[in-house]
């Protein structure tokens, strides 16, 4: 793929029109007010037929899980890994709306991605067919808002190692305790995937926190003992509510343990989750960079100082040239991801980490340079690069910090 096809451009045009009609006029409320993003996102999913598409996709996934369960019931051993399928234009159809949303409101992508990608994705890839039927469709359509919680006040980059949240076996289920923080959609979520460690004094592997099995549970809003905080104040991504979760002796029945077995650790297969999360960041970065460049070009042409448009100063030209280099690089990475999807292939974890690292850094650099190019206006909310700049920063933090990506790339290459 060397350029967007006519069909891609048509998708872009349609989603752009939607963003301009439905989101841009409400940006102030989303950014500086308390308007949650979910109604607009639901409208977007319905308008573009994404609800129907999600239903079809889920149907296929469910059929595979059922076939696997039936094979096991017959005493056969199903293949360890499920083959990827060539996805045609599916990757492009996901990425183009992300790019267009990110030009104005990257927070919306975060809120949507966590609900539809992370939460529903985790349930579909790890749940039993009963669990998928119970929770996944409502999440994919955003009829229910989803959250996915691993981070804790004392455990971030070292999410599994320092995790304190615990699950204790009791009659008929488990009792969960712990605190989670920085949880996207936390304040509004209806369905929450919470990751905990099994506290099992009788375990043959020992019950030291570092040795405990990692399990995940699906909780509903309003479950006794579960408190969802108000949105935390933060630097950017204001349209994506982020909050804390408190679990105090939360009793859950056995059928809320994802996979309905203790023998599979949450850590197995978690790389797939990381990989898909990291590819989404490339599309977000492209939207941010394209918009920063577009705004910067307009400003450099029209802002006059010392009797000429500032675009005639070489130091301003340098900024624009660097932005274009970043735009081309990120776009090429996005094209590659679309191509891989078409071929039924994916990125390796090292590649996905390298992409995320580059795209996040490039988006941040471009957005900072855009603010600089706009001068005082760049610092003012009215000129929009200010918001994109604050929003871009989080790309270097969530989904694994730059530092963690860096060491993962190197370690996975060194391991051969």
């Amino acid at each position, binding site marked *: 793929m060397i350029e967007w096809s*006519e*069909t891609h451009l*048509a*998708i872009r045009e*349609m989603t752009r029109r*939607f963003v301009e*009609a439905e989101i841009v006029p409400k940006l102030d409320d989303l950014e500086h007010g308390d308007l949650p993003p979910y109604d607009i996102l639901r409208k977007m999913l319905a308008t*573009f*037929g994404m609800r*129907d598409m999600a239903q079809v996709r889920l149907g296929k996934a469910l059929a595979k899980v059922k076939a696997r369960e039936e094979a096991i019931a017959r005493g056969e051993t199903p293949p360890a890994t499920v083959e990827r399928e060539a996805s045609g234009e599916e990757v492009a159809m996901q990425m183009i709306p992300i790019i267009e949303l990110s030009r104005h409101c990257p927070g919306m992508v975060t809120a949507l991605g966590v609900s539809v990608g992370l939460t529903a994705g985790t349930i579909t890839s790890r749940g039993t067919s009963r669990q998928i039927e119970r929770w996944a469709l409502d999440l994919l359509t955003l009829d229910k808002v989803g959250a996915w919680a691993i981070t804790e006040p004392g455990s971030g980059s070292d999410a599994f190692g320092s995790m304190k949240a615990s699950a204790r076996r009791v009659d008929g289920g488990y009792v969960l305790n712990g605190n989670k923080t920085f949880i996207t959609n936390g304040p509004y979520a209806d369905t929450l995937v919470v990751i905990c460690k099994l506290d099992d004094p009788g375990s043959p592997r020992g019950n030291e926190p570092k040795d405990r099995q990692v399990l995940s549970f699906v909780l509903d809003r309003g479950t006794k003992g579960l408190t969802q905080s108000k949105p935390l104040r933060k630097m950017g991504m204001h349209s994506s509510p982020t909050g804390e979760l408190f679990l105090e002796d939360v009793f859950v029945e056995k059928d809320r343990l994802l996979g309905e077995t203790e023998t599979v650790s949450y850590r197995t297969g978690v790389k797939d989750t990381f990989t898909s999360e990291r590819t989404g960041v490339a599309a977000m970065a492209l939207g941010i960079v394209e918009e920063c460049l577009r705004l910067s070009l307009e400003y450099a042409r029209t802002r006059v100082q010392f009797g000429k448009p500032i675009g005639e100063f070489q130091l301003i030209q340098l900024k624009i040239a660097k932005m274009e280099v970043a735009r081309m690089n990120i776009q090429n990475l996005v094209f590659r991801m679309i191509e891989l999807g078409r071929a039924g292939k994916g990125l390796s974890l090292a590649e996905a980490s390298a992409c995320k690292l580059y795209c996040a850094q490039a988006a941040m650099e471009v957005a900072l340079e855009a603010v600089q190019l706009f001068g005082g206006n760049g610092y003012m909310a009215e000129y929009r690069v200010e918001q994109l700049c604050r929003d871009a920063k989080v790309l270097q933090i969530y989904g694994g910090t730059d530092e963690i990506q860096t060491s993962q790339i190197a370690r996975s290459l060194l391991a051969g």
Partner: protein
Amino acid sequence: MKILVALKRVADPDNANKVKIPASGDKVETAGLEWKLNPFDDYALEAALRLTENGKNPKARVGEVVVVTLGPKECETQLRSALATGADRAIRVEATDEALDGRLVAHALRAIVAEEKPDLVVMGKQAVDGDNNQVGQALAELLDWPMATFAATIEEEAAGSVLVGREVDGGVCTLRLKPPAVITVDLRIVAPASVYSKHTDKAHKYADGVRFAALPAIMAAKKKPLAVKTLAEVTGGATPTASYAKFELPPARKAGIKVKDVAELVQRLATEAKVL
């Protein structure tokens, strides 16, 4: 009902400041312009789609919408987008804007109408680039069909006639047309209760504005038929009778002045502006 909708792509009216005219003044520089469907044509397409469906279940089409444009290959982007939005077929007549005038376009459309035999031709009241407001009227004349211009409402009646509401100074003028007929539409045609096919319940309210194409429909539009014709095939030897003599940009606005008090303002209004 079968409807022919004539579409034209225009330079994005929101980026009108990008329009450049070379020193020779003999043309508009089109390189680097962004193209969009003429907004009134977008409304015409929406009206045609509403007339060929039951508003409650727009996925099941009851009728046919054929879109046609005269323009270069790049215009197929706009045609594909119309197909994605719900049109059934598209026709492009190979041409460049410079080779056309309103009369020639009307002649070409007459030939297409003769072939397609639609019940209605629905089009925008004018294209926002030239603002000529000619083609619909000229086409109705050439076809000798009844015509309603600047439609704000269209209602299909059980008997097959259409009621067209036109907003005129001081009120609404309603025409009853017997198809085949030509209708040109104004912007209010996309309001929630502006257009009703005979299948749509009068209590139904549409979403305001033109509809969006769903992503699967955009994919499927690739496979819908798009026919290409030459200009010679459809103009029957007619040639443009209007030609462009000269283009110039509006003069740059002069800077205003600041007055120090009301007395000076009044004095200047009286002596310089001569409005008092």
